[in-house]
């Protein structure tokens, strides 16, 4: 018997005006594995992840998490599902009105999992797990470098020990070394939590570091799914072009001259 996927998406469609961004998209994300969705700019990666997180309402289709259709849930049920989710946003999305430790402990405090008195030392512990010292705990996010902000955002995402972790372009805006460090932290933390990881990126080096399975989105649909190790021998001309980063091939970018 096949294992139920952690996330199961069927017939997902979303259009903005005349532009159809997702078109009857189907995808299964296996439990306890790292899936990375790759695709060019404007291919619908961000819309896909926002639909799964409930930040955008799709026009049609179903999204099941642990076998339950999250699109048909009440707001309170949806919030309960979100409680088992951690999300790392592309630009970190740290709350700049709060110090670092409150950012990290935000989910713990919001879900009444602990008091403010207990949350601070716990936040410092979690910061240590992503390689940051206690000295940053009281700083404002704006006082941190891009790489440090990303680490704090990762600390916030893992703080409540989520079942599923989402990563939106985790290495965007970082130099290659810091990108590799963030990827290593992601792999380490996901493994430690035994979580399912779902990432979107157009950074192939990052995809290969954090993925067990890679899926490619193009034209609003998933056009290829396979093991990360096999991506260079996919036999799919779209995937081949994307992996090579070539302007020649079936993918035509919209460029106005």
């Amino acid at each position, binding site marked *: 018997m096949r294992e139920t996927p952690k996330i199961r998406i069927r017939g997902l469609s979303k259009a903005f005006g005349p532009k159809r961004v997702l078109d009857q998209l189907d995808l299964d994300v296996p439990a306890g594995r790292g899936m990375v969705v790759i695709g060019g700019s404007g291919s619908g990666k961000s819309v896909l992840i926002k639909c799964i997180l409930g930040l955008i309402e799709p026009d049609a289709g179903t999204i099941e998490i642990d076998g339950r259709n999250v699109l048909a849930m009440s*707001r309170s049920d949806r919030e309960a599902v979100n409680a088992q989710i*951690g*999300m790392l*946003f592309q630009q970190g999305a740290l*709350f700049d009105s709060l110090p670092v430790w409150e950012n990290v402990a*935000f*989910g713990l405090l*919001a879900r009444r999992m602990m008091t403010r008195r207990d949350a601070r030392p716990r936040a410092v512990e979690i910061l240590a797990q992503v390689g940051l010292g206690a000295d940053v705990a009281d700083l404002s996010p704006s006082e941190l470098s891009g790489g440090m902000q990303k680490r704090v955002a990762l600390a916030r995402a893992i703080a409540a020990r989520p079942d599923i972790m989402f990563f939106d372009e985790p290495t965007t805006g970082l130099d290659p070394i810091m990108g590799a460090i963030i990827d290593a932290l992601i792999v380490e933390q996901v493994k430690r939590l035994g979580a399912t990881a779902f990432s979107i990126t157009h950074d192939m080096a990052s995809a290969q570091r954090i993925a067990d399975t890679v899926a490619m989105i193009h034209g609003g649909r998933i056009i290829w799914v396979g093991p990360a190790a096999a991506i260079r021998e996919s036999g799919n001309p779209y995937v081949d072009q994307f992996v090579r980063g070539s302007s020649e091939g079936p993918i035509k970018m919209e460029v106005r001259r």
Partner: protein
Amino acid sequence: MNAVLDLLAAIGRSLFAVLSAAGAVAIFAAVALSHVVRPPFYPRLLLRQVLDIGYFSLPVVALTAVFSGMVLALQSYTGFARFSAEGAVATVVVLSITRELGPVLAGLMVAGRVGAAIAAELGTMRVTDQIDALITLSTNPMKYLVVPRIVAATLVLPMLVLVADILGVLGGFVVGVFKLDFHPGTYMARTWEYLEFQDVFSGLVKAAVFGFIIALMGCYQGYHSKGGAQGVGAATTNAVVSASILILTFNYIITELFFAR
């Protein structure tokens, strides 16, 4: 004929856009109000907003009120002197301040200071995904961001206006006594003589409504801003302009409700 049809179509489009925006604001307000009475509550955030909106607006509101009272005394004196009615200066000052100038000027000053700040803060949070981050952290942004601001503004505006009323009358008193040579006792007696509870109360009701409007428009514009820095700038401008227009509109409506014969 075509030109007339084009003109009618343009008017229709504009009217439709205004009605659509009014509907969207009304729905936003209804959703926000529905969250006011439902837990979780954020008393720490409410207190911070009370300080931000109320305490830190005191200097600007106080200065506006004092100078308005002073100039009102001066202008009414020069006007009334033509009819030998200088004795009415104190009454005109206190009624104008408590009924109109106190709430309206405080409302407009706070709209500029606080409405803009709310729209800019929420707008920046929107375009940097911080509002989305709240949702993924099981926190309802309406409860966490909008409700504390709306409740705080509705509560503190009447207090600010009460301060503005006192300082506005004081401004008039200073000019009346030290520049226009009124006897202090006579001036104060004239101030109290025709002042009724309803004059002050109507001003405080106006202030509560204006506070609600300022926070609502700031939150609405910021919450729905898009398009990066330019979008945040547009949201800030729209928040101040729409709040100011609504303040003047509701000022007339409330005056009509209280004082129409």
